[in-house]
């Protein structure tokens, strides 16, 4: 039951993008078309879950026993960068269909602050490896939900008569603001 609450909280209540502002760059940049958005969402889910798991393992089995917790920032970011590279190579060789499906979104995830952010939050909140991985997965689900919703709204808005000063970046920010207000309803759970 606790896990359920954690999952819901990660995905909707403290939505990674609309509440915590992690992954904003990808959120804004790849949400113009729904196909790209969904692709990015799945890619992030894949990498984020894996990264939470690996970072959790490294932290608990390597850094903590040797008293090297202060190295976590360096360690995590290197892990994420390496992981993305590795996943890309692995998929390209063994699961070509998935590689083609995720395409170019994979390398972009390295600098996605959501990935590093979640790894750090797992440490901050003292999650076990399992809890941390579950948290990572549902956080990414929240990202997928948010970016998908935004992409469909943006597609619908494509021919809107937006005032010139607001065209482009500002109106997308306003859309995000309204979405953020809409997600506030979940904070009462």
């Amino acid at each position: 039951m606790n896990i359920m609450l954690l999952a819901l909280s990660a995905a909707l209540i403290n939505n990674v993008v609309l509440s915590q502002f992690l992954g904003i760059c990808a959120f804004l940049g790849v949400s113009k078309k729904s196909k790209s958005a969904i692709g990015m969402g799945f890619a992030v889910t894949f990498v984020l879950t894996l990264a939470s798991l690996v970072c959790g393992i490294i932290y608990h089995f390597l850094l903590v026993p040797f008293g090297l917790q202060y190295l976590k920032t360096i360690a995590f970011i290197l892990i994420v960068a390496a992981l993305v590279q590795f996943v890309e190579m692995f998929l390209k060789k063994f699961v070509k269909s998935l590689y083609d499906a995720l395409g170019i979104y994979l390398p972009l995830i390295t600098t996605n602050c959501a990935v590093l952010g979640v790894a750090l939050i797992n440490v901050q909140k003292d999650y076990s490896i399992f809890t941390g991985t579950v948290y990572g997965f549902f956080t990414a689900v929240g990202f997928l939900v948010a970016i998908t919703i935004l992409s469909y709204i943006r597609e619908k808005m494509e021919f809107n008569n937006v005032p010139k000063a607001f065209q482009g970046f500002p109106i997308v920010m306003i859309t995000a603001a309204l979405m953020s207000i809409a997600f506030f309803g979940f904070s009462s759970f």
Partner: protein
Amino acid sequence: MKDNKDKPLERIWNGIYVENPVFCLILGMCPTLATTTSATNAIGMGLSTTAILVASNLMISLLKGIIPNRMRIPSYIVIIASFVTIVEFLMEGFFPSVYASLGIYIPLIVVNCIIMGRAEAYAGKKGPVESVFDGLGMGIGFTLALLLIGSVREIVGAGTWFGAKITPAIYEPVNLFILAPGAFLVMAFFVAIMNKLKIGAARRTDWDPTENGCADCSSCAKLGFCGGKPAAAEEEVKA
């Protein structure tokens, strides 16, 4: 780049106005939206980022001769991450309250596109003195932008500035502005104003991401509405 663009004062002005990272380059959105809940937090974040920017720019510029090209990005990451860790501990020790309110956004400076971007675009190619001033300029520009946004959010949303109440008693603070939606709203209006006045990102039609250190456009917040080449990159992303 022309020679006089590398002079120290020129670099500083560049970071503050010509290529302000928040309003012109639209980089580093995550910390910008997250840490501007008050003017104090904004300054805390801005100054920490500046410190790291200057330090890493300097270090990278000094070591650029030694780092093999293929190991470029990983080395930059290690250097930046090391300085972030140092700054993190300094903050925890000397400014614990700011450290507490900024939370995970301090270690997240590692993935702040501004730092990696400047490393790639400038420090990796230019000498140490210019790099230091470039980092200083970008950092100050970032800090000023954050301070501006943070002040607006704090004054409108809480009636205070740097924690001191400055609005008249009759003013009822609009709580939304210090919360998540407020960040998006304030950012939207600032960029819209800049677009209207044709300063900031709207001025630039010559923006070349590869030259300026962005890994590529697809993860950039400006994709699709940047004035430069990225519009073409969007076609790639769509495919």
